[in-house]
């Protein structure tokens, strides 16, 4: 009974098998001997600790033996070429892969020392603690207020309407959106600009006061000015949350993150302080990627 909700997800692969398929990796240039991760995968004050995580999609081995920590109050950037598994790994952290047909995850993922992969863990409270922001802004077709209030409402976080309003207002403030929308809270969230929509989604995620926020290429659909605003926001959010961000842009990783992890074809190649990775990468693949030889 404990894992009821997660079972629903697992038994119910009906969210269109065709809609989500793992990306194909190009295995041409990669030497399989380079196993094992270079650099320090552990953090001094871990919020999440992953050990030997493997992900299979059907016959395909999408993530191999990845061990990685997400530290408290840090931004961890995950970079790598397309199809390297960084998004797949991110989705393991709040078990979003449960909803994907034919996806099997093994290994140990601890959140505050408790294994979230255990069969008795319910994904619902887990996802309340590990929130997620997606690549494409996906506000619900409701008002701005209702978008932010969605999480507090379903989780029963507010005892009264006043408390709910307070949560919405403070979330919008934290997402740097309050000034732009305070006069039109009743307008539909889909009417905002792309950047505003993405900040609305971030506000929506922080309204449930998670401990970790996962961001899957949150700026890839946005223009540079909106991107700058979101990056600034990420930096501010770091004070209260752990953030794990997948990005295609190395500049972005360099700008917002404290630590950076480089993925390549399902392997975690190198992890380290962002400053160090971009200045002095230790692995040849990391260096090739950062210097733009491929990717």
């Amino acid at each position: 009974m404990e894992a009821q909700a997660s079972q629903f997800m697992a038994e119910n692969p009906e969210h269109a098998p065709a809609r989500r398929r793992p990306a194909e990796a190009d295995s041409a240039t990669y030497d399989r001997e380079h196993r094992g991760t270079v650099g320090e995968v552990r953090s001094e004050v871990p919020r999440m600790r992953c050990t030997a995580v493997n992900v299979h999609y059907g016959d395909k081995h999408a993530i191999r033996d990845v061990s990685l920590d997400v530290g408290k109050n840090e931004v961890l950037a995950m970079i790598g070429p397309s199809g390297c598994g960084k998004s797949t790994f991110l989705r393991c952290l709040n078990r979003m892969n449960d909803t994907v047909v034919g996806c099997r995850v093994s290994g140990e993922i601890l959140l505050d020392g408790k294994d979230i992969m255990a069969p008795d863990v319910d994904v619902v409270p887990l996802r309340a603690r590990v929130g997620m922001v997606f690549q494409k802004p996906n506000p619900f077709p409701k008002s701005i207020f209702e978008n932010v209030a969605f999480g507090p409402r379903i989780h029963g976080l507010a005892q009264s309407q006043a408390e709910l309003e307070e949560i919405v207002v403070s979330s919008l403030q934290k997402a740097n959106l309050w000034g732009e929308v305070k006069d039109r809270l009743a307008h539909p969230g889909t009417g905002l600009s792309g950047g505003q929509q993405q900040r609305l989604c971030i506000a929506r995620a922080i309204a449930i006061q998670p401990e970790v926020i996962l961001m899957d290429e949150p700026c890839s659909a946005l223009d540079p000015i909106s991107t700058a605003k979101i990056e600034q926001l990420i930096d501010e959010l770091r004070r209260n949350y752990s953030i794990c961000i997948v990005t295609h842009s190395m500049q972005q990783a360099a700008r917002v993150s404290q630590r950076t992890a480089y993925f390549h074809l399902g392997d975690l190649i190198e992890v380290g302080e962002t400053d160090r990775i971009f200045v002095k990468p230790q692995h040849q693949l990391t260096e090739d990627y950062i210097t733009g030889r491929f990717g």
Partner: protein
Amino acid sequence: MTQTPLLIVLLLTLSSLAYHFGRKRAFAVSGGRIRTLHSLPAYYGLYAALWAVIPALLVLALWLAFEDSVITRLVIASLPPETATLAPSRLNLVLNDIRNLVVGNIVSSEPDAAILAAADRYRDLRGISTTALFAVTLGLAAIGGWFAYGRIRPEYRSRNAVERILKGILITCSTVAILTTVGIVLSVLFESVRFFQAVPITDFLFGLDWSPQIAIRADQAGSSGAFGAVPLFAGTMLITLIAMSVAVPIGLMSAIYLAEYASPRVRAIAKPLLEVLAGIPTVVYGFFAALTVAPFIRESGGLFGLDIASESALAAGLVMGVMIIPFVSSLSDDVINAVPQSLRDGAYGMGATQSETIRRVIFPAALPGIVGAVLLAVSRAIGETMIVVMAAGLAAKLTANPFEAVTTVTVQIVTLLVGDQEFDSPKTLAAFALGLVLFFVTLALNVLALYIVRKYREQYE
């Protein structure tokens, strides 16, 4: 009429002759060098064949369409004046006698001399008409073929000409849909206008009393012929409401279950099985309602001390609802599947359970589409005929009690028009007025529903 197949065969023979000669001539004019022809020889043949058959067929169709009414009019004109000026209904009887005499059937009464003469005249006219038809169409075919034959030259663009003709035929076919709509509107409107000359339109639309029997004697009680359609509209709405309250929850919930919860295997079995419900003819539902459901409801009502009519609105509405379940469920299924996956991800990513995602995100997002689907289903229920004809009542009663018998618009159309009919009594014309209302109400619902659904789809494309 009976010689039409022979005529068509003759025309087709002429046409294939035209093809043969046209093709031969194309070879001849090219002097054996086919490359000098603009088109392939077959196109020259086809050109001649089409010219031979199409005008003749058009004339044939028009001739057949109007032959009978023209002959009838001529016969009426030849009748003695006291017969020709009879009331239309009586005149029809006379005409029927004449026709029966012509075919050699037994006639109801001993025919008098005038009728016999008319029958002879009728027979003569038909003979003349048939001969003339043969002459005209075959002549036309010959002329058409000859005309095309004469135009065959190496430089003549016969392929383009043939393609123009074919395209013309295609366009004509595609206008059949328009003609059907025009036909529906005109035929229903025309008879309705005649009806509204006898019964004021306000009495029809707002009258509370429906009893279409026209009194035979002036002093007859209880059947003054009232045409207030409000009880019919109310009955239709009551049954539709019952049907919808069965079909919408069941259809919607099964669509949701099959789209969001069921395993692919369950879905692959249950979905087509549910759709079988839509493929069953409505007359079968009608029989089921009358034979099984209505007595069952009546008896179960009896257990609770309820007095339920054997033709209760509940039975008809219930069965109609079952019929509409797959309609609602497959339309809702399309609509639910059109909700983008990103919205589901967003809700799951925040820790919503599956039912919360469905109720608070997917359902509101799909609502316009679902409303459209329900409107289509309502229009379907309003127009449904056989179930109510077989399981609902005939008496027009203004009630909202589902245990009583009510009647509907479609039931009344059927009752008024099935059986003996004279075409000028308000009784039969009333059916067309009801048909007019039915057509426009369902049309409005469909247009509205299709508009909503289209807008909804555009939102997510």
